[in-house]
Structure formats: structure tokens, C-alpha cells
């Protein structure tokens, strides 16, 4: 199989965001068929002073090597994908995600994450979100294998 070379990741324009969180509602609709947003959304908009920050998976894929059952794979379109049916809910990916973007909601044991579907982009009334194409080689990160930090 030809390996994907690029992946779409979310880009955030904080100056445009007004904090309505329509993106979160759209996201939880995709993952849990509810407009609750919040902990059921893979994208989170967090107020920081007078502006907002986005917190979401950047598809770097460190979690791919963490999964003991192979539930995490990079899809043809480059997106890091969690197959819920294969997942055994161990939370290794959640614990090891360097930015805390692999999320866990109370309703199920399996985690969930951003799949770059663009629902949030379409839902944003301010055009504060967009999907941009990145080279996987530029963002890819692997779990440390080295013996100790200094070696």
C-alpha cells in the first residue's frame, strides 16, 4: 500500500474566534450524536485571557506505536484513526499523547479523537477554523526508544 504523504490538520485563527463553541457541538454530534460539545468533543476551545485557544489532535501519530491491539492506524488520507471495534480501552494512547488530544468521555471506555472530518470548520460562523495540508514527515513523532533522557 502506498503510504500517505500528507494529512489535513486543523488550523485555528484566534483573532476570528468569538467562543461560541459551535465547533464543539458539531464535533460531539459526529462522535456521540449529541450537541453537548465539551468533554464529548474532540476539538476544544479554551478561553485564555481575552482570546481563545484551540486544543485538538495534530495527527503527529505518536499514539500509533502505543496501541497493543493495532486499533490505531494511519488511514489513506493520513489521518490517525482509532477503530473502536478493535480498541480494548487501555488508555495507553490517552496517557501518552504529548498534548492530551486523545480524549476519553465517560459514556464509553474507548477514547476518541479528531478525524479531520471538517464538521467543525463548516459549523464555525466566524471562519476561525480551516483544514490545512501538512507533510506527515514534518510532523511525525515516535515514542521514545532511547535508554534514558541523556543518551
Amino acid at each position, binding site marked *: *500500500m502506498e*503510504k500517505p504523504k500528507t494529512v489535513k490538520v486543523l488550523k485555528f485563527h484566534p483573532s476570528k474566534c468569538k467562543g461560541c463553541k459551535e465547533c464543539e457541538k458539531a464535533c460531539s454530534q459526529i462522535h456521540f450524536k449529541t450537541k453537548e460539545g465539551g468533554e464529548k468533543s474532540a476539538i476544544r476551545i479554551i478561553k485564555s485571557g481575552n482570546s481563545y485557544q484551540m486544543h485538538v489532535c495534530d495527527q503527529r*501519530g*505518536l499514539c*500509533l*506505536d*502505543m*496501541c*497493543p*491491539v*493495532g486499533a490505531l*492506524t*494511519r488511514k489513506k488520507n493520513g489521518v490517525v484513526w482509532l477503530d473502536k471495534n*478493535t*480498541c*480494548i*480501552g*487501555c*488508555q*495507553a494512547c*490517552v*496517557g*501518552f499523547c504529548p498534548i492530551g488530544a486523545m480524549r*476519553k468521555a*465517560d459514556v464509553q*471506555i*474507548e477514547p476518541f479523537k479528531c478525524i479531520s472530518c471538517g464538521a467543525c470548520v463548516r459549523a464555525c460562523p466566524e471562519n476561525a477554523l480551516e483544514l490545512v495540508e501538512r507533510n506527515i514527515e514534518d510532523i*511525525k513523532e*515516535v*515514542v*521514545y*526508544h*532511547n*535508554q*534514558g*533522557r541523556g543518551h
Partner: protein
Amino acid sequence: MIEGQIPIEEYQTGNSTHEFNLKNLHSKHKILKEYKYKIGSVDRGFANRTLYINLDSNEIKEKPVTEKMKKLFTGGRGFGLKLLWDSINPSTRWDSKENELIITTGPLCGVTQYPGSGKSLCLTISPSTDIICDSNVGGFFGPYLKFTGFDAIEIQGKAREDVIIVIDGEKGTISIETAPNEETNSHLLAEQLTYMYASEDTDKSRQKISVVSAGEAAEHSYWGCMNFSFYDIRRKVCRMKQAGRGGLGTVLRDKKVKAVVAKVEHFDGVSNHPADPNKLAEIGTNLHREIRDLDRDQCNMRAVGTAHLAEIMNEYDLLPTENYRFGNFPKASKIFSPEFFKLFSKIIPDGCWHGCTMACAKTVDAFTVMTGPYKDDKVTVDGPEYETVGCGANMSLWDPLWILEFNFYCDTYGIDTISTGTAIAYYMELYEYGILNKERCDGLELCFGNAEAVLEFMHRMAQGDTGEFVTIASKGIRRVKDWVKEKKWGDPFLIEECGMESKGLEYSEYVTKESLAMQGGYGLTLKGPQHDEAWLIFMDMVNNQIPTFQDKAEALHYFPMWRTWFGLNGLCKLPWNDVEPADNAETDEPAKVPGHVQNYVEYQNAVTGWNVDKEELILQSERCYNWQRAMNVWLGRGTRKDDWIPYRSMGPVTKMEYLSRQERYDKCLLEQVGIKKEKLETMETEEKMKILYDYRQNQYQKLMDAVYHRRGWTPNGIPTPQKMKALGFTDKKMLSMLQRKIDKDHKKGLNAWGGLYNSGEKPPTKKEKYWEAW
């Protein structure tokens, strides 16, 4: 180094591949018995029934797990003790047909959220010790056994021909089948059975099978271990973890069981149906994060597993070299963890159960076998773990490749690396003294460092060589001591005191000469000298945190109880203190790792729905610990004389050892024994050795006194009926047996302290029959 983010299908080990005609193999199976059962589901960690199989009558039945059983025995090893108690009698020995081989799980076994939650606890009457041996092991079998519907399996009786037991959680059947043509050695047998019983030809299906097996050497030795397989979807290899200690594999093969296979249809993150899955996810995720952030600066388990200990032990003079004569060695750096790190395949995750991000189960892939029947094959070697590296040091093998060769053959032949390595190191020392020689060793030149001879011995053992030495030596140090003394080949004192066994079981790989508490940590154990009850060397020797007998006794109460707890629940001990919270050093009792103890309180409550606190966890263990000791008494052992340890574990047996650490021992004579400097200077080494010997033996007796008292036992080490009642036991058979034993001891004058106390020193109490007031 293999880069990360390689799709799982594309990982390659470079191992040799095998072509098995599985259809043909399977067609030769004759089904002796098939039993259909309702698969059911696990409720709050318990399947609520156990599986009983009798190989004499081919009877298969289910036994209920009662609430009383949970209350008294918690689960796991505790259930194993209860099942044994109901099935054997005081004259049962390892090869009696009523002896059982028991594999248990525990209520937390099979949880995926918290690292180290896939352990099985195995029990039997050991061929080495004639008492109960318990051994814990990773791999998928335990969780799968529970998810197919059983908290434990007990196998009684002996089959007439080689059989396998198949627990099929997909069809809901349990079968006993003959298996005449399968391989016996584990690395091939596990592969054959995994491929044979997988529902589909996919890695996913193969991952749903786990095989328990031993090997050819287990048939001829008392060191038989059981291998528990787990299929690695990245390496596409059936990997194995070992229930090593005490000869479980010997009993498995004596029962003519080639393998036990468990197959699950489906499992997920909540197959245990825990009371509070979100709590589990929360504490599990927190521990994953601790491991992520701290492991590389603490133990480096994720990079090299337990092998990191070799360099630490060598630095502190604790790495056993040349049969524990020394604690470090000039060549030791050749087998430090960086050397193995170079050989390990760096593929994360390396947990032996899902979700264990300690990931200590390292492998060397495409290892080229150097000797024996699999010479030139490229295989995956699991490990080596520290203990196996320590065996290398003990046998003076300073080449990582020979340690891997030793490790590979021990595993596939189904023998314990620890017992095998420790015993061979002893034979090598006798060889050095000329007590053994080439002729007496059936032509083997068993001198220190001779790796070829070590492997040749193992191959002969596997072939069932009937030479006198091979036959006796494969039964372990205790039998060799008796044999060599009977032959009058050497000084009985030397033969007895330098062989590192206690209760008939070989020591694991730590030098304990300078830590009295750790001498107790080995000697005052239930099953024999294994470090899984207590590891107190740093607390005692390095940090001097437990200076008095009372302090040491408290540590030898708390830590064995605490560590027993993991085995009642199906857990691994490593995530408790091989990673510590960042603020652990600032807590009241850093050695206990209070932050993680609290995790375990919440963990057990979250699975079972109980409402226990940390004191209750210790109580759970105390019940089982005392019950096991009481059963050892019932089996005719479990007394002070059985807690004897060889002097090699306490001090210098030989002049060379004394002289190699003369400053240390002289200092001990000056400062602890109180010999005047002028006098010491005039003394011969032999005289100094004798005084040190008497002193350290007496110290050990005093330690026993303090520990027995703390544990609620008599001075002869018998758990008192009063203590047993306080723990909630009302079993009349057990209580009256203990009372009779204590009365008998009284007549023989054995209810007296063992230490000689000078003026100003006191035994734990001067009251006779102090327990009667409890």
C-alpha cells in the same frame, strides 16, 4: 533501530519460519471428553465459578465461587489455596495423583486500563520443596481464562498419554484431547496450537489464543516452568512469559499435559464489568502519564525492562557472581543493560498484557541459536530479565549472546532460568574445588564460564540423559548436596553452606550477605527463597532505615503482606514501585509508595464495588499468607528449621571470600561483635571467620524471633489458632491441626526463642505461650 510508525503488517522480525501441517496434526487428536458450558459474563471482576478437571477420570465440572470464599481468600492465589486445601492431604507430594496444578486469575486480572493487570497465579505442591509453590506469570492466559468464564482452573490426576486441554470461549466447550504429534518444546508448540485454534488466519484471531506449556527438560528436571503465550501482532510471534519458580512445569508434564489452550471470542475494556469504569480509566491514565514522564529518568523499564538492575547491583556489590561468592566483577559491564539494549528490538508496546505501558517484556528478534536441536534457527528470545542476566554473572558467563542462548533454551525446554542458573553456578563452584570433576559430571567440564558445557547439560537434560550426574543435578541443589555428601567427595560444611537453596528451592539473584533483613526476606518466605515477598536491601543496607530487629520485623511483616496482595488480584508488582510518583520522596514512607497504594485501594473498589481501605488490603493478604504457612505446617514443614538458610547468604563461607572483603568483615568484628582492635590484629583469618559465623547465625536467629512474633506465630514459626481466628478463620480441621502441632512443639521444647540474648538484650517477649492471651 526500527523507526516508529511502521504499519503493523510491515513489521518483520527476520526469524526463521516454520511450515506445520496443522490439519494432519489436528486429525490425530482423539477427544477424550468434551464438556459444554454456558459462557456467562464476568461480574465486577469475578466469573463466580472455577473449573475442575480430573485427568484420571476425565471428569470436567464447574465449582461455584461463594461470597464467603471471596471474603476469606479475596481471589487469585487465595482461591488457589482454598482449592488445594479442599483437594489434597498432608501426605500429598508433587507426583501424587491428587496433587493439583492450579491457575488462578484474581478480580483485577484482565483490566486493561491499569498497567500490570494480566497476571495469573499458579499453585501446586512443588517437587523441589514438598510444600506449596506459588508463581506469578504474565501472558494472556489468565485474562482469557476469566473471560471464557472461570476465576481459576484446577487440574487433578494424570493422563495416560499426552493430552491438551482446550477451553473454547467461542463455542462454550472444554475438551481433553490427545495430542500425540505436536512438539513438546514451547516455542514451537505455542505456535502450532495458536495457529491450529485461531478461528481465522489473521493476527487478530491469533491474538485471542493463549497457550500454557512446558518443554522436554521439564519432564526430567524439578525446575520445570510453565510458559504462558501471548501473540504479538507486530512481531507475528507467539511470545511467552514464565511461571518459573518451584517446578510447575514439572508437575504439568508429570500429568502428561502438553498444553492448556484458552480462546476468547471477544473481550474489550470493560469485560470485567467493573463497578466504576471511569474511575479505572482515570487512575490508569494517570499512571500512564507518570510512566511517560518519569520512567526514562527512573528505571528505564520501557527501554530495557528489568535488565537495568545489573549495573545497579554490581555497583552495590549485590550482583551474584561465581555462585554468590562476590557481588561484583571486573567483567560485569559486558552484561549491563546497554549491551542488551543494543540487541533488543525496539518495538513499543512490549507489555505482557494489554495496556501495560511499563512495557518491560523486551525481546531479541532473529537471534541465531548457537547449539542444540535448533542450531542456526533464527528465533525470538523473550528477555533476558535481570534474574537471567544475574544467572549469567553467577555462572561467570559474560557474553550477552550466551545469556540469550541460555535464556532461549530454558524457556523452550520449559525450565526456570533462576533455578537452573543458580544450581549450575553451585555445581561450578564444587567443580572448581575438585569436589566435582569431569568424570563425576558425566563428562561435562562444568567450570565457571564454560557456556558450552552449560548448554550441553541442558540439552542432555531435555533428552532424558540417564547419567548419574545429569539425573541428580537436574533435580536441583538440595539433591546434589545430599548426593555429594553421601559420596564423601568433600567437606560437608562447604558442600552444605555454599549451595544457595533453602527449603529445597534455589535462590534468586541477589547477594544478601550484608543485609540481615534481606536474609530474612529470602529465608522467612512461604515457598522458598524468592525475592517476591520482600526486597529490603536498600532500606536496610544502603539507607539504614530499619536498624533494629523490631524495625526489620515490621518490614518483614508489611512488605510480604503487601506484595502478596498483587497475587490475590491478578496483578504485577512492578507498576507499584518500579515507577514512583514525582513527589514520592517527600511522603512519610517512600518505601511503601503511598501514592500508588492509594491507587490500588481505588482500583480494587472500582472493579469490585467494595469499600476497602489500605489496611483492609493488608488484611486480605494476611489471611492468605497465614493460611499458606498453616498449610505448609499441615504438609509437615513450615517451622523454624525449614526457614534455615545457607551461610553463603549470610557471610563468607570460604577464606577467599573473607579476604576479598576483609576490610568490611574486620569492621563488622570490631564495631558489631565488639572485638578489640589489638586482638583482631593477632587473629588468623579462620578464627575471624568462625567468630563472624557465630555472630551472624545468631543475628539471623534473633531476626526469626522478632519476625515470628510480629506475624503472630509461635517461636517455632507456627501460625497460632488465636491469630487465625482473629483473621476470620473458623475451619475446625485447620485450627485443631495447628493446636496439636503447637502442643507437640511444647513437649519437645520447641516453643522457645532461637537467639542467644546477651545482658541488655531482650527477646520479643518473655511470656510463655504469649499467644494465648490474644
